[in-house]
């Protein structure tokens, strides 16, 4: 079917200036205006803006730890308002089904689950396959696993490391590699409770820096499009800005992505020894063109922190609200679930401001990514309000007036005039994520791109505009109309599929048989195990 969108303002910075023009698509792909043909269907989008479908690079939407959080907090889901019925599982709370619907309603069409434990890959992909409408992808976690730490300790060849990383990517069907508090989870099993960038995992004699550098180089050599995704040490602690700073310095001219930088934006100034270092970190990011970051913005209210940083989560048990937690010493990272309520007190206000400072003081929208680290800083349903804060100084000032003044005084927020433009929003949430993840077929509206399109009704209520997209197309199918899902379809999980080295496969077989007493097929799975038609789609590595 040939479809024409007319009358809308196209905001597609990759393909030229914004302006009113027609957009055509057919069979799921955007095409040039076809000469001499009439559209089978025309949508009049007067008064609307048109962007590519949004891409979320870091949102914990599925897998073992997320599911454990659901199990720990049934009351959390019950708090979700029932939604109109008539569709399968449309009323479920914080379920896979609702996740797909809520994202689609905001015009998001691709979401990355950034923390998949390799041995949980089948579980994670089963969950992701039950998230409707949108495409998904995963980052696989390395850096606290015995095999890699042993390779580094034994000074194995870079080929060996690369073969292991490639085997892991292939067998877990991932799009990239993440390292989470490198070495700390392994050290925690030896009762090490604080762990910084140059600390060493006792059993291996390997430093956090050594692990990060090894993985960063390997990911780069393998041509994995997404740079190593780093969750640094000392998350959430006063003074963690220093950790972030040395980690950024360690990029050393090779691409590196730093996750949820807001949680490292803290200094030790002020009466409470908890202050903002966002301006310093933003400047450092501005001066390091190989570094990208996502923010992990904090918004207020009840949420639950879900993290594979088991050390950090163990230390946070005392802050749990309500008072129940799960801590897992896993085969590698493990993780922890700690429910938390962000209050408008000193700490919550400071965290909120630090996130906004980072957004507003990092100049290049291609290198700062829009996340709340769902659900850690806030659930992704808070995105519309966050767009408003970025695009309106007035909205920031109004919100600031409700918050702790002493905290805000230790930040630069009140002095920042910048307001994001729609073009910058389109870069930060569409074009830049696609480039960062190596997804050439999305993030823009040029011919050849898949027809993932979000249409918003332009209005003075910015949050309202982004909360309920007027129309959303996924692969050319109309899936959302006036903020409501009108059509269900199943998306795919995007993966790299490097061909694993045969010798490494044999080595993995021997390793699992010897160390776990189980054949390798206990830890791997065929595509057919997902029981959906074409559950995966391939993304190519850089050559």
């Amino acid at each position, binding site marked *: 079917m040939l479809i024409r969108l007319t009358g809308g303002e196209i905001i597609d910075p990759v393909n030229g200036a914004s302006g009113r023009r027609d957009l055509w698509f057919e069979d799921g792909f955007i095409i040039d205006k076809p000469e001499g043909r009439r559209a089978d269907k025309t949508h009049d989008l007067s008064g609307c803006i048109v962007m590519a479908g949004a891409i979320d690079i870091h949102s914990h939407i*599925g897998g*073992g730890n997320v*599911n*454990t959080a*659901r*199990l*720990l907090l*049934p009351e959390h*889901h*019950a708090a*979700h308002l*029932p939604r109109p*019925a*008539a569709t*399968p*599982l*449309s*009323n*479920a*709370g*914080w*379920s*896979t*089904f*609702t996740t797909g619907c809520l994202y689609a309603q905001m015009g998001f069409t691709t979401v990355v689950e950034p923390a998949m434990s390799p*041995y*949980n890959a*089948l*579980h994670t992909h*089963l*969950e992701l396959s*039950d998230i409707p409408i949108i495409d998904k992808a995963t980052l696989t976690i390395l850096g606290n696993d*015995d095999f890699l730490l042993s390779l580094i300790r034994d000074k194995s060849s870079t080929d060996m490391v690369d073969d292991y990383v490639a085997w892991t990517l292939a067998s877990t069907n991932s799009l990239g590699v993440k390292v989470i508090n490198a070495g700390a989870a392994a050290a*925690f*099993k*030896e*009762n090490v409770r604080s762990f910084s960038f140059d600390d060493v995992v006792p*059993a291996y004699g390997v430093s956090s820096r050594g692990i990060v550098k090894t993985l960063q180089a390997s990911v780069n050599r393998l041509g994995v499009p997404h740079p190593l995704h780093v969750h640094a040490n000392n998350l959430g602690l006063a003074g963690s800005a220093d950790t972030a700073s040395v980690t950024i310095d360690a990029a050393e001219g090779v691409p590196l992505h730093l996750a949820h930088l807001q949680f490292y934006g803290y200094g030790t100034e002020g009466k409470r020894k908890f202050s903002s270092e966002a301006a310093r970190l933003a400047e450092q990011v501005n001066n390091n063109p190989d570094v990208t970051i996502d923010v992990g913005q904090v918004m207020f209210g009840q949420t639950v922190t879900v993290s594979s940083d088991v050390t950090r989560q*163990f230390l946070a048990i005392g802050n749990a609200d309500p008072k*129940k*937690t*799960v*801590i*897992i*010493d*896993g*085969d590698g990272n*493990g993780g922890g*679930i700690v429910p938390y309520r962000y209050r408008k007190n000193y700490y919550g206000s400071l965290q909120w401001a630090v996130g906004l400072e980072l957004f507003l003081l990092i100049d290049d929208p291609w290198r700062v990514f829009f996340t709340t680290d769902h659900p850690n800083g806030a659930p992704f349903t808070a995105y519309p309000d966050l767009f408003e804060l970025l695009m309106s100084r007035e909205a920031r000032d109004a919100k600031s007036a409700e918050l702790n003044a002493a905290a805000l005084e230790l930040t630069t927020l009140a002095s920042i005039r910048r307001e994001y433009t729609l073009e910058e929003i389109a870069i930060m949430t569409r074009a830049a994520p696609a480039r960062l993840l190596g997804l050439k077929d999305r993030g823009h509206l040029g011919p050849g791109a898949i027809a993932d399109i979000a249409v918003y009704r332009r209005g003075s209520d910015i949050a309202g505009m982004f909360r309920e997209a007027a129309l959303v197309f996924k692969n050319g199918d109309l899936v959302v109309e006036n903020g409501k899902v009108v059509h269900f379809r199943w998306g795919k999980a995007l993966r790299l599929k490097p061909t694993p080295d045969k010798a490494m496969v044999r080595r993995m077989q021997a390793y699992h048989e010897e*160390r*776990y*007493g*189980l054949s390798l097929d*206990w*830890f791997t*799975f*065929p595509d*057919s*195990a997902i*029981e959906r038609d074409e559950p995966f789609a391939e993304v190519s590595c850089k050559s």
Partner: protein
Amino acid sequence: MSVAWVGSQAVFLSDAIQHAAKLLASSRCPVISFDADVHGTRSVIALAEKLGAAYDHIRGRELLNEVALFTSHGGMFTTPGEVRRRADLIILVGDLPASHHELILSWASAQPDLAGKQSRRWFHLEGGEAVSGGKDAEGELSRQVKAVILSAEAASLGTAVALLRAELAGRRTATPITNLDSLKKALAEADFPVFVFSGNTEEPTSLAMLQGLVADLNRSKRASSLFLPSDDAAWGAVLTSVWMTGFPPRTGFPNGAPVYDPERWDIQRMLRDKEADLHLWISPGDEIPAKQGRIPLVALAHTASPVAGAAVTISIAAPGIDHDCVAYSSRTGTFRATRASAPSDRPAIAGIVRQLAQALPSGEAESC
């Protein structure tokens, strides 16, 4: 060979599905008991939502306390792989289901390669009153792993856990625990002790008490616990239910939205009290459902003949035997894809349940 019956009459599968769908559609308050692999479970929960039905695993009663440990308490856990490779001290807690003995014995024959010292010690905390049947096999397990027995006279397991926690926290108790000093010494020397436990249906609070003990130890040293579910397939159903609806079983869909309520949706109670007016039973196991009073029964069972008293019987495949499947396994503590051991043409649960859902009139869903 017949695979479908209406009453005792063999019929075409499609006719049996139509007949069952009619019964489901006209039911005001259908309830579903099931036992299935992941894909079967996914289909069952989707059907329950469409019907406005309540669902529970057929071993739902055993699941209650295991689920409640998470929904009301939480804890510190590790994986079977870490126990095998790292635990230098293993404390078995109570009678562990026989289905896990092979796993436990496999640790005894492997050295912990990630532990500081390449050996491990074993203890076994026993409750005074043996849970039905398990005791002999359990004594055998203790002997095989050469576990030192910890027991507190006739104290129940829950009481024994509480006594042990108090003693380890330095509080004196009136009831002595055998070999306590030797456990204290072993704990002091261990780098990564792990308490291995399973659900305890008699004493729900004992699971939280054990987690309290583990939390106490973690104030100064490391320790963890390994949860071995009373039934692997049932735990897989819990996890699947949780991601699909946000809730574990027992969950129902009154007015379309899922509501988790272990008392309200106790299917045996609902049948007894005649709140339910149709029972859909789905299980590839050997257990044959009993019809309750006049409430119609639709049985999807691994059977070559009609289930006595069932309005409709459909023969289904056993996951992992008749067809490839995905199921939870305590060997890895997560899901595993398994090949069929004896492939057959018997219809899979997921396929039958989806056909049932499709045969329902659309927009159907009055619910209790």
